[in-house]
């Protein structure tokens, strides 16, 4: 266990050597970098005492926070990531207090589950239950198991690692950065070892998903809707710390949705997808039907349904061809039957 005393006797140089990630924490205290790096911290803090008010600096809380940061980082780096194999949703009750009529829903890693139901039926609450790792303590009374038991990790408060990552149509990039810079920033905040390789892989994958190509130097805010979606999905699949990915519809424009799902599956994510698009719903292994705030039933996609998928995809391609015909300025009836 690290003590405040041991931190006080260390110099800034030693801290950097022993805890390479301490940089992230010290960045918020730029005035410290102007202090001699070879002096014990205790001495530096003593020197700073006279300016505490000006710097809005409190040595005691600084020390406590630094210790907390190191302890958490050591835990974070020591833990085996990607170890969530299965999430189980145990029944609670619907909006009227009726018990939910299913036994349990299992969400396995590398599989896709779609969620269907009218707006306001309780899709968000289901997600929130999973994210909060509900233990019968939410309005639905549901319980969530992680790897078949009540979770031992404190998923609720671990700020470095949330259970659920989210992708929705309303999300936009807002940072003023180029694609590569942006991904490097994300990679650094996740403290991965081979950041550069990962970043290149994300760009390559995103380009496979996107209809139109983009380069590492494209500003992220200049990406088209389809390109943004592709980059968000590739980034979430490869770099996000969260084992569960929630997708709120993927519009059928400028992105290969089948490839997008395949990428998430290959990266062993547990994929949940709220959708009313029959093609997407059929790409899922199972679907949860929600009504009145409760899970009404769980349908496993049948072989008959899977057969319909190719028919639906045929119509889909046809629509795409018409759309393309419009884009290039042609007449719709001139499009040949495919």
């Amino acid at each position, binding site marked *: 266990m690290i003590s405040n005393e041991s931190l006080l006797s260390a110099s800034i140089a030693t801290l950097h050597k022993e805890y390479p990630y301490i940089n992230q924490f010290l960045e918020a205290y730029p005035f410290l970098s102007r202090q001699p790096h070879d002096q014990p911290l205790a001495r530096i803090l003593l020197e700073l005492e006279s300016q505490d*008010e000006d710097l809005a600096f409190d040595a005691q809380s600084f020390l406590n926070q630094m210790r907390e940061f190191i302890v958490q980082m050591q835990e974070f780096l020591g833990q085996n990531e990607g170890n969530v194999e299965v999430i189980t949703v145990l029944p609670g009750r619907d909006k009227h207090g009726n018990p939910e009529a299913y036994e349990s829903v299992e969400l396995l890693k590398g599989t896709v589950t779609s969620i269907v139901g009218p707006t306001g039926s309780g899709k968000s609450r289901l997600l929130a239950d999973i994210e909060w790792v509900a233990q019968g303590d939410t309005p639905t009374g549901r319980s969530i198991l992680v790897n078949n038991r009540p979770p031992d990790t404190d998923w609720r408060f671990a*700020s470095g690692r*949330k259970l659920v990552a989210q*992708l929705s149509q309303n*999300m936009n*990039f807002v940072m003023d950065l180029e694609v590569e810079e942006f991904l490097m920033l994300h990679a650094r*905040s996740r403290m991965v070892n081979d950041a550069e390789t990962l970043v290149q892989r994300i760009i390559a994958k995103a380009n496979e998903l996107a209809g139109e190509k983009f380069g590492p130097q494209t500003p992220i805010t200049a990406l088209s809707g389809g390109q943004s979606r592709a980059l*968000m999905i590739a980034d979430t699949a490869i770099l996000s710390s969260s084992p569960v990915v929630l997708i709120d519809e993927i519009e059928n424009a400028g992105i290969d949705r089948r490839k997008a799902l395949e990428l998430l599956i290959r990266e062993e994510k547990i994929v949940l997808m709220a959708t009313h698009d029959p093609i997407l719903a059929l790409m899922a292994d199972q679907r949860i039907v929600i009504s009145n705030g409760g899970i009404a039933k769980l349908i496993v996609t049948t072989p008959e349904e899977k057969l319909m998928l190719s028919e639906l995809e045929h119509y889909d391609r046809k629509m795409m061809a018409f759309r393309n015909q419009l884009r290039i300025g042609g007449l719709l009836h001139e499009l040949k039957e495919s």
Partner: protein
Amino acid sequence: MNLITISGPPSSGKTSVIIKTAAQLMQKGLKVAAVKFDCLHTDDDIAYERAGIPVKKGLSGALCPDHYFVSNIEAVVDWGLQNQFDVLVSESAGLCNRCSPYIKEIMAVCVIDNLSGINTPKKIGPMLRMADIVVITKGDIVSQAEREVFAARVHAVNPAAMVMHINGLTGQGAFELASLLMTGRREITSLKGSKLRFSMPSALCSYCLGETRIGASYQMGNVKKMNMEEQP
């Protein structure tokens, strides 16, 4: 009564988060009231009233809002005690990044939003660094990557805090915040003798007293000068 101090930069979503969280607390049968501290103008009291939350508002006008807050919080607490509220939420806008409105042993929540820029966590002083809970809002409109980067930055300046995401429009996450607040609750009967977690920004110069003229000869008291030479 439980006192909860909530603070955060202007327009970060404090009022929305409080109203959505209060609704959850009221569903559990608790009596919730609020006090809104601001500088020149606020309509948030109307929003609170509409939500059925008794509210007092205080406008600091020409004074530092932080100083105004600390000089008035005791009377506000007495008001809450007299009315037998279970939970009293004080909301104050962090109008300068040096704001420091938290009180020792009183639950402190900082609300900050994903759109404020990734360097913002570094710029905010005690208001973020000394909070017990940090609520991040507006996560529904930025990418997952940006949410993760922002949360990591918040974590770097306040590793001890619990960090959570709330959507102020839909209220997603408010139930969870309400449960957290109730787990960490602490009954108080007075603020007499309580102490601030950190000293407030200070000012005591001729401009505080209404001076408007510019020039060294008009500057008296606690005056601080930029060092123009040392900077590159």
